[in-house]
């Protein structure tokens, strides 16, 4: 009598009861055919392990991602991070301390910003909604409610900048079609409003959002340190995300014709 492959494999995997284990061991001792098959299964297991290891790559995180950590520690649970968890663009983050965010410009991280859109992404949908909700326009730092719903040349914002009040503790800034080599400086300040200074292009301001179209040269974006959530997107891809006391560049900021300088206190 021979032992079946499934029993031999279970024997290898220590999945057989003690009594049966002894019986299998004794049988294999005196049966060359079963000993051969056991050796074959053992070799196949080794080849399988080696083969599968060739597929392995390093996981994207060695530590818990900031958005997951924040959710785990928040009272609200994970509902608020769902779009982040499922968005393919947000995986690699550079965590900065909350204190560091209050002071501008001492440590500089330079990464290229992704400038290609993700059709159908939740981020893109969100941008579309925020642009549709345009309600006000501010030019040269002076609110002009009468101009609501219209575009305005952004060059005028090079001085005091374009401002937006947070909406429900959130601010979003969308940059569209930046010129090649556009430099986007991002910092966090003690101000209560977000501001954007840009050269060239046009902009629109809506509730809690600013859209800058076709900027060139250098842009300066300042985010209020006190708000819970701020996002900067370039052509529909989330490139900078401030969440609570943390701010990070996403993997979408890896390659683009634009560059992002994330300036924070050290």
């Amino acid at each position, binding site marked *: *009598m021979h032992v*079946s492959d499934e029993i031999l*494999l279970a024997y290898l995997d220590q999945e057989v009861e003690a009594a049966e284990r002894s019986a299998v061991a004794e049988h294999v001792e005196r049966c060359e055919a079963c000993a051969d098959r056991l050796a*074959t299964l053992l070799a196949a297991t080794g080849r399988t392990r080696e*083969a*599968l290891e060739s597929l392995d790559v390093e996981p994207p995180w060695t530590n*818990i991602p900031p958005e*997951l950590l924040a959710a*785990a520690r928040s009272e609200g649970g994970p509902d608020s991070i769902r779009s982040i968890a*499922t968005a393919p663009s947000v995986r690699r983050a550079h965590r900065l301390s909350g204190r560091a965010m209050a002071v501008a410009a001492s440590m500089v991280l330079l990464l290229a910003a992704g400038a290609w859109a993700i059709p159908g992404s939740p981020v893109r949908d969100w941008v579309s909604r925020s642009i549709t909700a345009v309600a006000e326009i501010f030019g040269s730092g002076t609110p002009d409610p009468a101009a609501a719903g219209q575009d305005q040349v952004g060059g005028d914002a090079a001085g005091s900048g374009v401002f937006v009040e947070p909406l429900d503790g959130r601010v979003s800034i969308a940059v569209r079609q930046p010129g090649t080599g556009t430099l986007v400086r991002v910092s966090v300040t003690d101000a209560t409003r977000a501001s954007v200074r840009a050269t060239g292009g046009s902009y629109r301001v809506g509730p809690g959002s600013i859209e800058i179209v076709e900027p060139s040269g250098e842009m300066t974006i300042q985010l209020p340190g006190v708000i819970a959530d701020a996002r900067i997107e370039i052509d529909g891809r989330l490139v900078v995300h401030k969440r609570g006391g943390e701010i990070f560049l996403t993997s979408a900021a890896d390659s683009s014709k634009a560059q992002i300088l994330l300036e924070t206190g050290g």
Partner: protein
Amino acid sequence: MDFEAAFHDHNAPLFRYVNRLLGDADVAADVVQESFVRLLRHPMPDVEVRRWLFTVATNLVRDHARMETRRQRLLVERYSPPRGDPGPEEMTSRAERVDAVRGALSQLAPRDREMLLMRQEGFRYAEIAEAVGVAPGSVGTLLARALRRFSDALEPAHAERAERHVADRRHDASDGADSRTDISRE
């Protein structure tokens, strides 16, 4: 449940498992992160976390496969055994090896693939049965078949040699005085 400890303990093996299943590290990262998001919503005793995470990730991979039929087709085409000249100057040996392993995995049924990979992660048969939805008593049979198919697909030349070797052994044994009855359930 200590969520941060759970992430620390299970992130790397879960990512390895999902990446091996999918062959796409980006999608695997999304699946893993989504699995941990769901874990946040379903606190449980620490001892149950590992099996639960792998079960959720397995289901997410299945959902992904259903929703991405076109992508799946492209993957199968990509990882089919090479026909003709593989163009060695364009492929590194590592890439060839990865393609060969992917090709071998693609020849397994999705459920067999999941079971084989969960075995590699050290799961007990009962846990594998629960995660992939098969009867516990069938795990050994299904695993033995999956292991044999994968190994044969991976190294067909080796499989031929092994078959010849076993046949020779059996031939030698049949020349002997004792006759044996094969009770293998295979």
